[in-house]
């Protein structure tokens, strides 16, 4: 059985005794003459996690969450209620509560539509069952051994493995009936190294919408262990980071968190409808240097940020945000698209049935240029080369954003010099990309570790970029020399 709708019916609706007729009635309950749009989001989510610490597999957890979120929209007003009980009376009560947002005439008559999304960026598999439990334990033990074997200075190793299977079913009064079976796996390694009284930490990891076999391919899991140790050892030698505004070269891949913070959030449709973003009303304007093209692409096979459909049942897209430096478009969900006269770009996402959808990113990256990354570093007389980052944050109204480097080096006379301690970089979203002067030919996407938070809701995302030279960016170190 590979049809997501059939799977979702079987997993969610059948155990609750919900029939086709019940769904029609629920959607009808949600609508009246004053309701513009209504939808129901059913979710059944299973998660299994394992944690290894001190060389022993210490803890594991299995959790199941299920429920339905019911939404009724009238103009800019949204009524929302959810229930973790899926029997008809509980859902009907939620529907009435949500519909109370607008007083209108008689209840609507709605027929649930027919399926539409036919795409498979990932298989509807169960990653939890993809590997026997003892093999998951053994994998984490090998990761632990690999990290300890890599260097005698490794003191502590923590490794975790998470597998999730999310089943969602969306029906809406616009005829949407769509389902998606979403696997998601993640492995993380964190180490503490100690040498001559100095301690440093390093972490690495990755993930995908795949089964757990993903971590066994090409020695991937052990590679994360070695990478965590390398990072920690590098930081053992780190000197004070510079303070001030300077030329910064950002490495390929995860440093694309720059794009996510500096421009991504500012281009989400809700902020632009409300006029609260520093990018509001700037479509068609130059916001980046020539050669800079940034897209949000939910259609990459197997990526952590990818989705066959978004949480409103809209098929995901590859949306051009900035084309050759010119602002081209925003990311939209159904509500914001309707209110601004556009179409959803398949960016309507929610953390769970208990949260309202809103415009969110998927995989956000910059297309490659034509420069050799070594040539880019060689072009800098004095500056910073930042290759690994922790998280970031943005104030979308003022446009100010930060992202924190966890692995960085000084560049002196075109050469990579000593590693420096972690430092926060700060800039202004609407103009930072105008200072991009060289774009590498080495586009890389991150390893699949990104989680984005907005208004208290977390969703998995991806980022990526080629090596970039930014002519001036403020580096928050402590050394003023």
């Amino acid at each position: 059985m590979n049809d997501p709708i059939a799977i979702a019916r079987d997993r969610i609706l059948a155990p609750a005794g919900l029939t086709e007729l019940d769904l029609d009635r629920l959607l009808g309950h949600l609508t009246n003459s004053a309701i513009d749009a209504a939808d129901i989001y059913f979710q059944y989510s299973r998660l299994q996690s394992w944690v290894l610490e001190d060389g022993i597999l210490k803890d594991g957890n299995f959790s199941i969450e299920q429920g339905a979120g019911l939404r009724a929209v009238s103009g800019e007003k949204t009524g929302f209620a959810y229930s973790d009980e899926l029997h008809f009376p509980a859902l009907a009560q939620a529907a009435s509560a949500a519909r109370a947002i607008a007083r209108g005439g008689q209840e609507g008559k709605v027929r649930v539509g027919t399926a539409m999304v036919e795409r498979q960026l990932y298989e509807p598999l169960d990653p939890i069952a993809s590997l026997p439990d003892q093999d998951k334990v053994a994998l984490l033990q090998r990761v632990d051994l690999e990290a300890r074997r890599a260097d005698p200075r490794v003191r502590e190793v923590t490794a975790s493995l998470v597998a999730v299977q999310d089943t969602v079913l969306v029906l809406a009064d616009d005829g949407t009936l769509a389902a998606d079976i979403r696997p998601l796996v993640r492995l993380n390694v964190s180490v503490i190294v100690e040498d001559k009284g100095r301690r440093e930490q390093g972490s690495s990891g990755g993930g995908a919408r795949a089964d757990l076999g993903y971590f066994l391919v090409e020695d991937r899991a052990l590679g994360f262990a070695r990478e965590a140790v390398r990072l920690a050892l590098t930081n053992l030698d780190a000197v004070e980071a510079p303070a001030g505004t300077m030329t910064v070269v950002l490495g390929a891949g995860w440093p694309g968190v720059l794009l996510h913070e500096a421009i991504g959030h500012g281009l989400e449709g809700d902020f632009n409808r409300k006029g609260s973003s520093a990018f509001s009303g700037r479509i068609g304007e130059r916001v980046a240097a020539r050669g800079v093209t940034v897209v949000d692409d939910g259609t990459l096979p197997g990526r952590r940020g990818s989705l066959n459909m978004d949480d409103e049942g809209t098929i995901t897209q590859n949306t051009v945000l900035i084309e050759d430096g010119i602002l081209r478009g925003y990311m939209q969900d159904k509500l914001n698209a309707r209110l601004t006269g556009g179409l959803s770009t398949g960016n309507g996402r929610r953390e769970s049935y208990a949260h309202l959808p809103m415009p969110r990113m998927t995989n956000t990256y910059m297309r490659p240029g034509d420069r050799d990354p070594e040539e880019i570093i060689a072009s800098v007389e004095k500056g910073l080369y930042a290759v690994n980052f922790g998280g970031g944050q943005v104030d979308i109204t003022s446009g100010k954003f930060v992202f924190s480097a966890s692995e960085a080096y000084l560049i002196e006379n075109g050469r990579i010099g000593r590693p420096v301690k972690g430092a926060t970089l700060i800039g202004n979203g609407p103009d930072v990309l105008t200072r991009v002067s060289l774009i590498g030919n080495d586009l890389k996407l991150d390893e699949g570790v990104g989680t984005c938070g907005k208004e208290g809701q977390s969703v998995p995302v991806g980022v990526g970029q080629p090596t970039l030279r930014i002519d001036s960016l403020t580096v928050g170190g402590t050394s003023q020399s």
Partner: protein
Amino acid sequence: MPILTTEDTAERLARLQQIIDDLLKEAKRQGASDAEASVGGSAGLEVAVRLGEVETVEHTRDNGLGVTVYFGHRKGSASTSDLSPGAVRDAVRAACAIAEHTQDDPCAHLAEAELMATEIPDLDLCHPWLVDVEQAIELAVACEDAARAFDPRIVNSEGASLSTHLGINVAGNSRGFLCGYPTTRHSLNCAVIGQDGDMMQRDYWWTTARAASDLDSARSVGERAAERTVSRLGACRLGTREAPVLFRAEVAAGLLRSLVSAITGSSIYRRSSFLLDHLGERIFPAFVRIHEEPRLLRGLSSAPYDGDGVATRAKDLVRDGVLQTYILDTYSGCRLGLPTTGNAGGVRNLRIEMGELDRAGLMREMGTGLLVTELMGHGVNAVTGDYSRGAAGFWIENGEIQYPVEEITIAGNLKKMFAGLVAVGNDCDFPGGTRTGSWLIDRMTIAGE
């Protein structure tokens, strides 16, 4: 959907206790030597308005159950949002299945029975607010109106929102502990946007309390949000320099949180804290006392017992500048060879003893330096204490605000910053369980133009 009222809670409490009781029996039946579990349910209403109109009305209703089983020193856990008997049995089974694969950990066990809370004081944490949707909308609109009317430069709004929640949590374990109690929490938030020329700034304010009568007025919340927003207009950058930094009270609370995270047992036994081996050492100047008051009446973080069922108690974390204790639960205490401090789940109602100076006094004491009112990003290295974060605030000269500043970073090391604490103000003026005034730190690096 009606908000739960106090009349419902006794019945609901009994039902949840029954679920835990049944679950513990089921765990024994499935062979576990010990088990612990907690179950909770909450119901709430959240209303958001924007530009005077309703934006969202959300009815929330959450259930959750978590169980941990022990087979000797092996453990496994499971959780579910479905509280039906079948789902609870499945959760126990899933936890037992996990425990088949975990390994012996000598510290994996329940707290000693004699440490479990027996007397459960009523901490006055439950004050249901029978506000209906219309009244909630009215209050949120009044709050946003006050903000929009405050200054003509307030040109746009992210809106105001009001929320009220009533929750019941019951916890129990196989050593005879079984307790539960209801709590409420109500909040009102407002965020508005100001404009001056091309520049837009946004800021917010909020109030939160266990009882609606303890909330600040809608008007004062709105006006404060607007005042904060307007004060940021015209912000410029600073040149890179070293200077004293005054952390305004609500951002100083973040420094207290960094302290807590560095002295939490799991950070210590994982050797991932810059305060490793600092127990009994001076980490602040001698005037500093930091303490925890977990049983404050109506306290926003109050709890009579911790996540292990151990009674909470008031204690000094730092006295005369000296670190008095780590923050331990049963597990991390065992790892470090120390008794639990009743802090499973964290620190509750953290406070620092406040000094004599108000905010103006602190600014005069600083003379010239940076008043930080907002921090961005997560640039704190817990292992080394290295600190580097985005900041916004005001440049101060001769003890007076000169102009707002933004797009700068402040950097230093938490160990040095703690040692370099010059004064703590008496200007605690933000809501929440943590109480502190503003902190004046002697010197940090500011990076800017």
